[in-house]
């Protein structure tokens, strides 16, 4: 584990300033995230934990630029995401961000290999196929490259999702409950793989989870409750 001193000298890669997210609901204005500020250093791994409905996933969406805050701003590598339009944020995601989701979100009509190739193709990589095959090898699924998601087990699907997330060598990886849909043993192996790959690629990791084991492997744990950070 890196020392506190080492963390301090690392430069900031993701910064949230006074983030608030409110939505209209039948009961009136609902505040889901309330005045959250965070500063995450390059290469750092941060776990966001808290009870269901605490606003963890919404915070993740705001940090990743999938959604816009009602107030505050998000700086990714110094770039203010809140000042970009949807397409501008999409371009940043293509270049700098990777995702892993609880329900895997593989495209059912594409094979494992094609799913991993997809972000490379979107970014215009020429050697998408080779890179994707290599990453699939790293997650131990090279032999199943031609299988469709429905032909894979849950654990295998999440490994494909991990390969897809790391294949572009993102600056920041966002993971939303990556083991939430898996049994304990498989979840453990996926967590192991996630941290191994993260260490290899020196990617910054922002992880939303209920899994205490997984959270404890992160350098920092942020506790959320009722939309705020404790």
């Amino acid at each position, binding site marked *: 584990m890196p020392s506190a001193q080492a963390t301090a000298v690392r430069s900031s890669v993701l910064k949230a300033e006074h983030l608030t997210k409110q939505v209209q609901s039948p009961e009136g204005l609902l505040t889901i995230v309330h005045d959250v500020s965070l500063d995450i250093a390059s290469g750092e791994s941060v776990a966001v934990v808290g009870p269901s409905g605490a606003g963890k*996933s919404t915070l*993740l*969406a705001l940090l*990743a630029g*999938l*959604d816009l805050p009602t107030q505050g701003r998000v700086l990714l590598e110094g770039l203010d995401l809140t000042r970009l339009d*949807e*397409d501008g944020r*999409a*371009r*940043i*995601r*293509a*270049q700098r*961000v990777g*995702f892993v*989701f609880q*329900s895997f*979100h593989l*495209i*059912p*009509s*594409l*094979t494992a290999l*094609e799913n991993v190739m*997809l*972000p490379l*193709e*979107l*970014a*215009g990589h020429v050697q998408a196929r080779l890179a994707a095959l290599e990453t699939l090898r790293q997650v131990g699924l090279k032999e199943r490259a031609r299988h*469709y998601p*429905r032909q894979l087990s*849950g654990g295998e699907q999440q490994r494909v999702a991990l390969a*897809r997330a790391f294949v572009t060598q993102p600056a920041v990886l966002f993971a*939303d409950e990556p083991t939430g*849909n898996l049994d304990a043993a498989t979840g453990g192996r996926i967590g192991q793989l996630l941290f191994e790959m993260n260490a290899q690629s020196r990617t910054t990791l922002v992880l939303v989870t209920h899994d205490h084991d997984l959270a404890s492997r992160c350098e920092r744990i942020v506790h959320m409750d009722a939309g705020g950070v404790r």
Partner: protein
Amino acid sequence: MRVLLLSMRMLSREWRSGELGVLLLALTVAVAALTGVGFLVSRISAAVSMQASQVLAADIRLESPQPIDEAELAMARQNGLRVASAASLLSVVFRGDQSQLTDIDAVTEGYPLRGTVMVADQPFAKGRPARGIPPPGEVWPDSRLLAALGGQVGSRLTVGAADLRVGRVLISRPDQGGTFTGLVPNLLMNAADLPRTQLIQPGSRVTHAALFAGTPERLATFKAALRAHRHPAERLRDISSTSPQIKSAVDRAGRFLSLASLVAVLLCATAVAMSARRYVGRHLDAVALLKTLGATRRLTLWLASLQLLAVAVLAAVMGSSVGYAAQAWLLYALRGLLISTALPPVSWSPVGMGFLTAIALLTGFALPPLLQLSRVPAIRVLRRDIGPPPPLLLLAFGPAIAVILLLIYWVVLDRKLFLGFTVGLAAFVALLALTGALLVMAAGRLRAGAGVAWRYGIASIRRRRGDSIVQIVAFGTGIMALLLLGIIRNDLDGDWRRSLPADLPNYFFVNIPAASRDAFIRYLQMRGARTSRVLPMIRGRLTAINGRPVDTLRFADHRGEEFATREQNLTWSAELGADNRVVAGRWWAQADEGEPLVSISTEFEQWLGLRLGDRLTFDIAGETFKVRVTNIRKVKWDSFKPNFFIVFAPGLLEKVAGTYLTSAYLAPGAAQSLAGLARQFPSVSIFDIDDLLDDVRSVLDKAVLAVQSVFAFTLLAGLTVLLAAVQSSGDERRYESAMLRTLGASRRTVLKGVLAEFAALGLLSGLIAAAGASVAAYFLTTRVLDLRYAFSPWACLVGLLGGGFIVIASGWLATRSVVRQPPLTTLRADI
């Protein structure tokens, strides 16, 4: 370029996974139905026109009292048309001391350009096709001429100054005319012998005709040039001016085929819309994910558009091939029905139209939902309840409505019909949507009281309220179109068959003297002939309309001019024939006898621009008759009974010397006694219209074939709509079935629930479709196709039960595999 490559790669992946299957299938069937109908219609219309052309012995016929200008013939040859000439004149033909006034037709090599000359070796015998025209030195007199002169094959006849040998007996020639312009026997000879006869002298009354035949495009060019250059005395005749029987058959078939192909187009549009809806529904997550992975909205839009374009191209190629194969197979399978040996070759324009239609359908019906798809936010990857923002109403429905309107107009090309069709369609769709909404509202009450399967099925209707309404509209439109087509097809087919029974009069007898009228009819009846009504016939000329001489009037229709300048056949009658219907004014009563009243046919009314109450002046045998138009009749010319454009009230023309006219059916054996009849009543002219009837029957056979084939294509299109509609909610249904089975429901219960839902949707759409089809059929048969409409309770029953059955069956087929699958497979696939 990168986007193009990427979209092609993604397309091939989607294609492999079967995701695009339904959309491609819907579009392929659409194009197949359209191009199949297009190929068929173009070939069969051409065949029908060709058949009709035989009555002219050409596609176009130019007639003049002067020899036809050589320059015009040369122009035709330059235009790539085939050309022949004919000269027709009246002269007395001798055989020894015997003589007979004869219509002599001298023709050149190539005659007839359309149709066949039939000859035999005996008078009144069954004809066989002749090869070519009479060689020089030979003539082919018809049966009546030979009977009158007492000659046979090998006899020598004197025609003018020439002595010519009888080579064959002329049984029929294509242009002998169903309109009875010649009342005398006929003789066909080679034009090369004409100078030798010295019959043509200055002042001789000769009708010169130039015959032209060729491809429609070349004919159109030539016709336009001819209209601009022809001499005033020249008269141009084409299919539109041939016998009214064939024209009305061609018109009806044409109108029906247009409507049928339009129905196929609209059905396909519905199928495409439903498949696109399903495609979009299934791709919301994928697009959200693409955006999460960094795809811009522009890129997702491009990807979808390029994929659609590729699908359109693929569907156009596959659909056109299927369409071509289908029409080729159909024509092969039904070749026995076709009398003519060969159909004209395929016109390739339907392929272009098929492709344009595929693009138009996709643009109108699939692009708007795809635009919506590109607006799905990336956040959907975390929150599945978030979809794309609701579209602008104009954007969602505007392109589809525009495409529908354009397609309808493109097919009907008639403002009145277009308005009627679109307003009717809009009203019907609105009615279906309203009923669907009512069903959804009522579903809550209907749920109570029945078993779990029924409750689950009805609850599904309410839960998917949007989908349910869309499905009712799609099912209803599909069933309505099929029923409507079925009703009209029966009406059309029945009407045609009724109008041409086997014992239809096949001989016309003209010039029956008043004194021997009764003896003549008795003679016929004794020989087993079934005679129709006997009407007087008087020749007369129309000289003025409302006091203005006709030669100072201008007529909008060129046929009006021909009517006004030619001698007309007139009659009088106290009774209105069963094949006549008064459409304006009233038929005369007994009290009107001797009043100066006249009845005119709708053709006469339109071509001369006449109205009820107009005063007409006729010159009949030197005497002037002033009469008032009292009524206008619609005449069914294809009854083959004596009918006249102009009928006088009784008590006016009796004093004028005239002859009588009748028609009769003679069985093939009885026809032999006609030689005796010709000798006993020498002044009576006999017209054998068996060949003309055969022509008309052949035209109708082709038209019926076309109608049936179009029906088959439309049926296919309709079934695709049903399939698309059922599949559009298939995924959700699949998931629910799996859930229910997981909770312990048996396969049977789940299946019963699905069937209950489809039964409710199917029966309701069938009911409205039957009502809609009956109303639409009434308007179409009476207003567009000029047929009698008979309400058919069977149609309603078939609509209700058939609609219900088809929908239930489609639903069962679509969900059967799901119910059979272990629920875990479905649930896992959905995770």
